[in-house]
């Protein structure tokens, strides 16, 4: 859990805007939540694109090309992300 050095550059998913792509650096919350997100394919280290979201209410994110996941505001707040630095050559 501590392999990512926390920095000012990390923030909860709730602070992102639609259209932004970010990388998941940590998932807070209990074992249940992390296991459920992992079962749905959302793991630490993954780049995630925000499709829908507002200052309150649930968010819609895309990852692994075709997975689309809705997460409630409370859950989104526990997903900590950092700006995504795409490797050269990918989009």
């Amino acid at each position, binding site marked *: 859990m501590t392999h990512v050095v926390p920095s000012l550059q990390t923030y909860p998913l709730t602070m992102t805007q639609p259209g932004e792509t970010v990388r998941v650096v940590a998932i807070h919350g209990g074992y249940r939540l992390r296991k459920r997100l992992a*079962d749905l394919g959302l*793991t630490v280290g993954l780049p995630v694109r925000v499709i*829908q979201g507002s200052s309150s209410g649930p968010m819609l994110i895309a990852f692994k090309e*075709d997975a689309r996941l*809705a997460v409630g505001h409370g859950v989104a707040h526990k997903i900590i992300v950092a700006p995504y630095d795409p490797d050269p050559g990918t989009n």
Partner: protein
Amino acid sequence: MTLTPARTDPTLYTKTRTFTVALAGNPNCGKSTIFNVLTGARQHVGNWPGKTVEKHEGFFRLAGHEVTLVDLPGTYSLSAFSAEEIVARDFILSGEADVVVCVADSANLARNLYLFIQIMEMGVPLILGLSMADVAESRHIRIDHARLSHRLGGVPVIPLVGHKAVGLDALKAAMLQAIEQPPGPPPAQVRLAPVVEEAIEELLPLIKRETALTYRYPARWLAIKLLEEDDPLLAEAAAYPELLAAVRAAQQRIQSTTGEEPHALIADSRYSFIAELLRGVVSRPPGAHITRSDRLDRIVTHHIWGVPVFLAVMWLIFQITANVSVPYINWVDGVVSGPITHWARALLGALGLGGGWIESLLVEGVITGVGGVLVFVPVLAFLYLAIAALEDSGYMARAAFVMDRFMQKLGLHGKSFLPMLVGFGCNVPAIYATRTLENPIDRQITGFLTTFMSCGARLPIYVIFGSAFFGASSGNLVFAMYATGIIVAVLTSLLLTRVVFKNRPIPLFVMELPPYRLPNLRNMALPMWERICAFLRQAGTVILAASIFIWLLLAVPAPGAPGNFNAVTLENSLFGALSKLMAPIFAPAGFDNWGASGALVTGFVAKEAVISTLSQLYLDETPRPAAEAAAPLSLADDVRFIAASFAEATVLTLQEAVNILPRTVNLLPGVDIPPVQFVPAAAEGEDTSALQAALRHAFTPLAAVAFNIFVLLYIPCMATTAAMRQEFGTRWTLYQMGYSLGVAWLVATLVYQGGLLLGLG
């Protein structure tokens, strides 16, 4: 054709056996389409023993073998978090299935294979079906399935297009091969991270010496699950202290050497295995990340624009369940009270049993009861179709997304909204609509609340009372009743979520949004019929028993009262005695006349009965329908009547469907488009002025309001009660009955007493 050799060759004959094939896969992966195409109408919907999870089984013949296809609930994983996951994993572990077909969405393979490799870990014979191959193709996603199969150590990999039946022959051939020459467990194994593999090696000898464990679980699978912190399995392992200690030690070592929790490391290992597996197998066009679904979702799931879309869809569903189903309901009602009743009377007459209590029991108890059950069939059919269309198209998940913001405030899930809305039409389908919720506690809470949604059968009661007491402003009473129901539901929801179930796991809103798809009619219609049969079997018996019970109350004279069995006035029957006994309870609410309590008793059978009982009691109308004065109708006439009225109901259904449009547009102020009329409307309007005068005599206006509030809130009709029992069990149903009676009495009393204090009496 396959039987010919069987007759001549006895060894071939004995080879014909019944086999079981399990169908596993993620929700929305196209599994049910494949299930329906394989089994057609030969399917059965029930419940998994002891679970509220639906069990779908289908049957088909495969080269002379009878195959039972078990459609496992759609799951993303096989942890033990939900009833669905437990059901799916227990079934696979039981070894009942000769082969498991795992269906994975071709366009979302990386995510879908997570379940597949967990089944692989369980060491059962497997086939991998890649569904929606056409969708993947249209998006230029190419999958080298031969290569994938090779990498999986020969597990058959078959591309499928369910609704076009593409790939089914190959799938059946693979099943046949697996059935006739069991392939054994797949040779490929997922290699997990080295630290995890090390831990598994340590645990294996400890597991293998406990035959009680190895008898039920594959050893390697059990070791992985224990490291993953699987609750039910850890509880079992507690009986073996040495094993449990080793698990804990290994978990700690993994955590300290890698800094990651074992379950996260195992999930990562599985995903990297999948990434490796698909390298060079799946090719995608670069940059095609934004799909058509995403573009649609920018509007549909938008926090502002999503709301009008949502309201429009919900309005449509409400119109379909509440209005479009009405003509068929009337048709069922007409057939039961017309031809079927004549036939029963004629048959009894021919047997020499006419005219007596047997006829009365059969016609007024049994046939009325059966009719009371059958009228729900059209509503349920339309509801199930509407829900299936919402789910199949992918909109259901979006609706939950849009409503989540609001429902979270009530401690509920976004999906709880639909059952509540359906409840305004009829509470019975509303109870069944709670099945769209995943968590059983959320389902129970939502089911509990739906009965406070004022259903269509309660409306005529408010209208008659409203026009009797408030004349032109009777609409205010109607509006007040609907509002009271909603307020009580909101308060009850807060009570249940904040107090009664305050320790339940917080509803974590995490949900996959499947891509939008055109719903498939076959997919929607096949389970609909099975679910209706389940309603008839389970709720039907309760409703029938209750209507016979009410008939007995009406037929048996009260002790000491004049009258004989089946020849007694309402007042002197057990029913009258019971009503009089109950009446004083309602004194604080202002309506302690026994007629009002009698109407509440029959109102339990069906809310429609409240008005007819009040007319019988206050206007002294003949309680029994006059013996058939009409000339005996011939069988041919009856059959013609049934057919003609069915045709008319069909036309009226179309008319109602078309009329959704004017009815909707007319909501705008100043717009008044007349609805279309394909057939002339039957003159309905019964004359209720005599009843209204009688009501004004029996109730004060304030007591009338209190009575209406009681009717709104007290136990819903017996059909709803039976549905609730079917879904949530007897105990929860009794709680609901007790609660709704208590709340009804309390609110009615508060309103009456409060009104008196304000000098409104």
